[in-house]
C-alpha cells in the first residue's frame, strides 16, 4: 500500500499547486453549506424558542379574533389586540370551578421599544415556560405596590438597568409614543434569563397600568387634567378591561369543556385558544417561508457543487500530462480514478467542515442580537439531525458529482497510452 500513501501525498501536492481555482470553488461550496446550516439552525431554534415561550397554560382567552393573532400578542408580544375584554368576563373565568388560576394580561404600553405587560404579581409564581420551569429572580423581588417594575433580563442588559433605577413608560408601542412622564417607575426586580419573550418584557401590576392612564383618554393626556402619582391611590384602580387572560385548569381533561364555556359566554364575544393548536397554525404559516428558504439554499448548494465539478473537469485537459507521468511510474488507471474522486470528495468534505465552523461563528456573532430583537435563541451546539442530514447530503452529492471528472480521467488515461495528444 506504499503506492497508495505516495499517491495521497501527490494528490495533496497537486491540489495545492492549483490552490487558487480550487480555493475559489471551495469557498463557494463552503458558503452555501454555511447558508444551509444557518437557515436550518434558525428554523429549528425559532421553533424551539416559540414552543418554549409558554408551558402549563391550558387556554388563552381573548376577544373574538383569529386564534393566531391572540397567540402572537398574548405570548409573543407581536402585533396588538384589536379588542379588549371586560374585567367582569375575566373575573367570571377566574371564578369558574374548573379553573386553577388565571393571569389577566394588559398589553399596549412600551418602554424604549420593549413591551410593557400589566399582570398581577402572582404571575411570577404561576407562569411557566420551557419544560414547566418557573420564573426566577436574578435580582430584587416581585412588585408589591404602584409604580414598581420587574424587568426581563434582556431589557435590563440592553438598557443597563439595575434594581433601584427609575424608568418611564410610553403609551403605545411606536417610536414617538407619548410618555407617561409624570409617573415614573422604580425597578424592583430583574428576572433570570428564560430564552422567551419574558426576557424582553417590562412587568408592572395591573393597578399601575390603570393609574398611569387615569388622566388619559384615547391615546393622549386629557388636557387640563393632571392627577399626581400620590393621588392616584384615591381612585378605584381595578382595571376596566384586559387584553387577554391565561388560564390554568385543575385538570387538563376539562380543557374542551372550558373552551366551550368561554365560547358560549353571554355578556360578550370571547374566544379560548389552546396554545398548542395555535402554535400548529403558526408552523403551517411559517412552513411556506421555511420551505422556500431551504429550497433556495439547496439550489445554491447545488450550483456551487456543479461549479466544483466544472472546475475539476476544466482542469483535466491540462492534467493529462501529469496523469501520464503518474502512469509511467506505476499508477494504474484505477488509481487515477481514485485520485480524482479523492480530490472531489476531499474538497467537499473540507467545504462541509469549514461551512460548519463558519455557521457556528455566525451563531456567536449574530446570536445575541437576534435574541434581543426577536426572542429567537440560536443554540451554539453540535449540529442537530436536520443539519447533519444537510451536511451528509452535500458531501454525498459532491462525492457523487466528482465521479464525473474521475470517470473522465479514467477514460482519458486508458485512451492516452503514454503520450496524451493534447
Amino acid at each position, binding site marked *: 500500500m506504499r*503506492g497508495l500513501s505516495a499517491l495521497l501525498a501527490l494528490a495533496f501536492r497537486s491540489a495545492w499547486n492549483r490552490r487558487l481555482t480550487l480555493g475559489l470553488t471551495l469557498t463557494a461550496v463552503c458558503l452555501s453549506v454555511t447558508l444551509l446550516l444557518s437557515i436550518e439552525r434558525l428554523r429549528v431554534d425559532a421553533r424551539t424558542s416559540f414552543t418554549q415561550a409558554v408551558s402549563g397554560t391550558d387556554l388563552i382567552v381573548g376577544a373574538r379574533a383569529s386564534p393566531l393573532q391572540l397567540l402572537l400578542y398574548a405570548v409573543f408580544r407581536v402585533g396588538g389586540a384589536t379588542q379588549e375584554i371586560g374585567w367582569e368576563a375575566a373575573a367570571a373565568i377566574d371564578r369558574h370551578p374548573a379553573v386553577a388560576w388565571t393571569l389577566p394580561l394588559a398589553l399596549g404600553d412600551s418602554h424604549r421599544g420593549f413591551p410593557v405587560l400589566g399582570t398581577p404579581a402572582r404571575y411570577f409564581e404561576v407562569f411557566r415556560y420551557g419544560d414547566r420551569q418557573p420564573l426566577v429572580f436574578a435580582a430584587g423581588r416581585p412588585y408589591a405596590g404602584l409604580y414598581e417594575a420587574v424587568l426581563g433580563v434582556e431589557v435590563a442588559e440592553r438598557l443597563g438597568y439595575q434594581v433601584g433605577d427609575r424608568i418611564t413608560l410610553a403609551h403605545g408601542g411606536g417610536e414617538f409614543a407619548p410618555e407617561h412622564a409624570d409617573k415614573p417607575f422604580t425597578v424592583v426586580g430583574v428576572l433570570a434569563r428564560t430564552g422567551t419573550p419574558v426576557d424582553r418584557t417590562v412587568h408592572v401590576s395591573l393597578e399601575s397600568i390603570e393609574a398611569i392612564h387615569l388622566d388619559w383618554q384615547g391615546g393622549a393626556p386629557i388636557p387640563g387634567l393632571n392627577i399626581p402619582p400620590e393621588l392616584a391611590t384615591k381612585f378605584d384602580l381595578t382595571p376596566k378591561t384586559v387584553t387577554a387572560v391565561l388560564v390554568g385548569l385543575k385538570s387538563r381533561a376539562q380543557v374542551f369543556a372550558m373552551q366551550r364555556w368561554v365560547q358560549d359566554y353571554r355578556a360578550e364575544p370571547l374566544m379560548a385558544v389552546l396554545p398548542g393548536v395555535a402554535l400548529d397554525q403558526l408552523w403551517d404559516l411559517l412552513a411556506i417561508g421555511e420551505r422556500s428558504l431551504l429550497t433556495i439554499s439547496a439550489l445554491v448548494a447545488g450550483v456551487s457543487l456543479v461549479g466544483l465539478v466544472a472546475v475539476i473537469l476544466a482542469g483535466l485537459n491540462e492534467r493529462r500530462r501529469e496523469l*501520464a*507521468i503518474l502512469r509511467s511510474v*506505476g499508477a*494504474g488507471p484505477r488509481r487515477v480514478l481514485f485520485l480524482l474522486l479523492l480530490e472531489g470528495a476531499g474538497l467537499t468534505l473540507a467545504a462541509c467542515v469549514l461551512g460548519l465552523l463558519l455557521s457556528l461563528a455566525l451563531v456567536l456573532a449574530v446570536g445575541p442580537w437576534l435574541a434581543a430583537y426577536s426572542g429567537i435563541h440560536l443554540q451554539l451546539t453540535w449540529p442537530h439531525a436536520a443539519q447533519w442530514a444537510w451536511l451528509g447530503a452535500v458531501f454525498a452529492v459532491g462525492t457523487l458529482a466528482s465521479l464525473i471528472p474521475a470517470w473522465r480521467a479514467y477514460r482519458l488515461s486508458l485512451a492516452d497510452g*503514454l503520450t496524451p495528444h493534447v
Partner: protein
Amino acid sequence: MSLVELTDLRYAWPRQRPCLEIGHFALAAGETVFLHGPSGSGKSTLLALIAGVNVAGTGQVRVLGEDLARLSPSGRDRFRVDHIGIVFQQFNLLPYLSVLENVLLPCRFSALRRQRAQAEGGRPEAAARRLLAGLDLAPELWERPASRLSVGQQQRVALARALIGRPALILADEPTSALDAARQRAFLELLTEECKRAGAGLLFVSHDLRLAERFGRVEDLTRLNRAQAEAACAA
C-alpha cells in the same frame, strides 16, 4: 532470455485500422537499440505496449520473460515501475515537486526500485543526488520546483528518474527533440553512457536518423512493421 521480445504482435487503436504488426523483435539485456521511424509510424504506440500501458490485441510482449498480457492491470502497473524507466519527449516532470522529489518518484511507488537505490549506499536520496551530479545538474537546482528548470535540465532530471533504482529497461521516446543540436549530442552521450554503466537495456525511438551513431543496433520500424505504417495508422 531477451530483455524484450515481441512475437506476432498486432495492435490497433480503438476504431482504427491496425497500427502495428510486428513478426519478431528482440532486445537483449544491456543492449542499446535505436528504433527509427517517421512521425506517426507507431513508435510511441510500440513503447506503450512494451511498458504495459496498453495491451496488444494478439501476439506476445515479453519483458524479462514475463508475458505482459497475462499480468493483471495492477500487476502490469507494478511491473512497469519495478523494471522500466521511461523518458518522454518533453514535460517529463511534475511541476509541483522539487527536482529531487521528481527523481525519487519511482522509489515511492516501487519497493524494488527503492531497495536497489538503497543498495547503492545509504538512502534513496543519496542515489538520486549521485545520479543528478553525474548528469551535471548543479546541487543548487535540486530543491527547486521542477518547473523552473530549462528544457535541457528537465530532460536530464527525467533521465535520472528513469535510471534510479536500476531498472532493467529504459524506454526513451524522442527525448532530444526539444533540444538544440549541441545539447542533443550531449544528452545522447549521457543517456547511452548511463545506461551502459547501469547495465540497462535501452530502446530509443526517434524519427531523426542522425542520432543513431552511438547505439549498438539501429532498426527501422517501417521495415519491422508489416501494417503499412503511416497510411494504415491514420484515422
